[in-house]
């Protein structure tokens, strides 16, 4: 079997993309572009973490927003209560991750024994519970109104924050790539394909599902921390169902079971949201851009269930296969193998 070299085409493309994105803030002085791209990075991280559940392990979770929200609130509250410094911000990311890890571990341990849709319902319920806590614990979270806070001095410059978010994205991407390529990652894919068979091979599938959900929760929390700082404001909307749905949408439109897919999906959706709502000034129908979005979503699920990346790679695979079988058929025509029915339909 071929050992995968580090210099594959996809890795090269990825590096070139990363470099281009790193240069963007130095050549473009459009604040809007910068903010939009930062949002894409943040939601790209969230969507990748969601894909770890949906695309790699086959777990459908409707409660992913709670980890995003935990990260967002942890950072916001700590930056508000203590000084607005980078040190506090870093610590708050770590604390948010830890809280998410603990919560996802226990939730996973208790609920991942359930079959898929029961699990999905339960995650919905638990994230609803967390949302209520965030709403009612007013002394801490200021409830639905939310609160503003000062971002660390370093991030006052949008460009610095942009680069920081990009760096986080790249690091997470590399970690995830390594993770899904490891023996453990292969077992996760096996669980997605056929859980019962994986168990009969001697793998304790519950452990793997818990690991995947802890990892996804931790990374979602990081995305939440970044999100809060990018807005310098936090309220309960960070825990709402919309966040989970966004992540789901990005993953499905981009392509489940790939890492680059959710990133693409995040880009497509953030761009679409930005420009469609921008169009509303001229065409009032776009004030309801979410309707158009719903239609796109339905069409995508019907016609491209594998998403952008999945569909492209499938087409590529079919094309390669066709060339291969064409070559095989050529050799077959020269020597008809025994045991193949001839034209009369009889067996030789």
């Amino acid at each position, binding site marked *: 079997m071929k050992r995968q070299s580090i210099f594959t085409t996809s890795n090269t493309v990825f590096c070139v993309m990363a470099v281009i994105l790193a240069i963007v803030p130095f050549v473009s002085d459009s604040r809007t572009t910068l903010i939009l791209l930062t949002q894409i990075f943040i939601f790209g991280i969230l969507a990748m973490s969601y894909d770890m559940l949906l695309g790699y392990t086959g777990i459908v979770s409707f409660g992913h927003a709670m980890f995003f929200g935990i990260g967002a609130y942890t950072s916001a509250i700590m930056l508000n209560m203590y000084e607005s410094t980078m040190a506090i911000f870093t610590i708050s990311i770590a604390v948010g991750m830890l809280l998410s890890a603990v919560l996802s571990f226990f939730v996973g341990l208790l609920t991942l024994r359930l079959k898929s849709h029961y699990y999905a319902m339960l995650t919905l319920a638990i994230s609803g519970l967390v949302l209520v806590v965030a709403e009612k614990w007013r002394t801490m979270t200021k409830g639905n109104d939310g609160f503003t806070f000062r971002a660390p001095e370093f991030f006052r410059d949008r460009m610095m924050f942009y680069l920081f978010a990009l760096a986080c994205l790249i690091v997470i991407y590399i970690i995830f790539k390594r993770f899904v*390529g490891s023996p453990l990652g292969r077992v996760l894919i096996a669980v997605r394909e056929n859980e019962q068979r994986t168990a009969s*091979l*001697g*793998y304790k599938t519950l452990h793997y599902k818990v690991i995947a959900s802890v990892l996804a929760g931790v990374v979602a929390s990081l995305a939440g921390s970044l999100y809060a700082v990018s807005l310098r404001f936090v309220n309960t909307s960070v825990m709402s169902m919309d966040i989970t749905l966004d992540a789901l949408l990005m993953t499905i439109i981009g392509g489940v079971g790939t890492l680059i897919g959710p990133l693409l999906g995040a880009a497509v959706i953030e761009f679409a949201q930005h420009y469609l709502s921008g169009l509303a000034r001229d065409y009032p129908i776009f004030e309801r851009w979410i309707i158009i979005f719903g239609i796109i979503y339905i069409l995508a699920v019907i016609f491209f269930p594998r998403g952008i990346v999945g569909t492209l790679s499938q087409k590529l695979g079919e094309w390669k296969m066709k060339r291969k079988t064409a070559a095989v058929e050529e050799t077959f025509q020269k020597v008809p193998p025994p045991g193949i029915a001839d034209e009369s339909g009889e067996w030789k």
Partner: protein
Amino acid sequence: METILKTSQLGIQFGGHKAVDNVTIDIPKKHFKSIIGPNGAGKTTFFNLISGELQATSGEVFFKGENISRRSPVERTRLGLGRSFQITNVFPNLTVLENVRLAVQSREKIRFHVLRHFTSYKRITEGAISILEQVMLTNKLYMPASQLSHGEKRKLEIAMLLALDTEVLLLDEPTAGMSLEEVPAILDVIRGIKRSSEKTILLIEHKMDMILDLSDSIMVLFNGRLLADGTPQEIMNNETVQNAYLGGLYDEQLTMP
């Protein structure tokens, strides 16, 4: 000969229906036992009880003298009870090699390693390829399992079982649904396992003529009960078996007014 697998009064009841009823058998090490019986006799259910997919409602299963009736399927596999499935049960979207590689990985107890890429475990990939050689699937290494023919999927199923390298192999109708041309290849594979290794094999089969020369002993299940257990010769000459299995009872029932 030392007993490796034993069931004592094993049974399972679904509502009022006893799918497996009071089956007591004793299988020595390196023994090749075939299980036959008409459709619905409880053969696969019996397997499910041994492998842990179903929990027995009565009786016990012993593996190497240890009572494993309450153990999960995962634990039983790790102890050394591997099984194949009658309904093809592979990872459809993974390649043939990956299917077997996962089984080898489990055998090598590489479960939670994350720091290295899976292809850097050369030994595992090589092990998987050598097992695929045994079942003659090396020409399909990189094909998704869903695109294999039925016979090839059955071979893959056996390869995954072999890759686990368990002491006891439970083979549930390895030739089910196969065309006649494909059957000899599977039989060769099974014969190869029997000849070359230290394994105890339990085989469910419908085609009686096929297993007569392979088996050390044959047990007959009928309506969940153990009808007979003995050498192939004894089973062939057993009148109850002939009646039950070769259609005697059915014909009588059918011709009844």
